[in-house]
């Protein structure tokens, strides 16, 4: 994989492809750009945080536009990419509201998705030669 030197600008298509890959698999965008250490950290930490959220019985919120806060939480959840799809496919993330750890689980799931969005933005900046 090519290493992005600071100041090296990639084509628009490349940049968006890197962002898409980085969204789908946390850290993959950085790995693509040659930032191996950061990519591996994100690849391990974010799916693990997401898994902890599921273990703590958090809920993967549905897209209910009639409830804007639920829809926003769903948007944040999906930010983690493939782990979200895998969890949904395995019927995980139903959430148990009476569990003592329910709100912690939600926080882990939502923040894992939001952090991955920040990681994607960082990959975008690197691909654009800004970092």
């Amino acid at each position, binding site marked *: 994989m090519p290493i992005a030197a600071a100041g090296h600008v990639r084509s628009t298509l490349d940049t968006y492809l890197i962002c898409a890959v980085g969204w789908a698999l946390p850290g993959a965008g950085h790995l693509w750009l040659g930032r191996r*250490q*950061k990519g591996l*950290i*994100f690849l391990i*930490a*974010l799916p*693990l*945080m997401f898994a*902890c959220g599921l273990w*703590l019985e958090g809920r993967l919120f549905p897209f209910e536009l009639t409830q804007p806060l639920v829809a926003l939480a769903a948007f944040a959840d999906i930010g983690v990419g493939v782990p979200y799809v895998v969890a949904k496919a395995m019927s995980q993330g139903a959430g148990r509201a009476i569990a*003592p*750890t329910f709100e*912690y689980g939600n*926080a*882990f799931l939502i*923040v*894992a998705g939001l*952090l991955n969005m*920040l*990681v994607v933005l*960082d990959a975008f900046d690197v691909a654009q030669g800004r970092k």
Partner: protein
Amino acid sequence: MTTHLGAMVAFALFVSVVFAALMRDAPGEQLRFGLRLFGGLVGGGILAGWLLYPLPF
């Protein structure tokens, strides 16, 4: 990890690791920044908990 403190510490750990990797490039700086952030999150959480303790609601 299913205690309040355990969940908070785990949350702080994940957030610190990711932010340290995002905000700093050199491994040494990442470690220092991550430790400071982790300490701030956990210490701040405990401090906020004690400050809120006397509140009746």
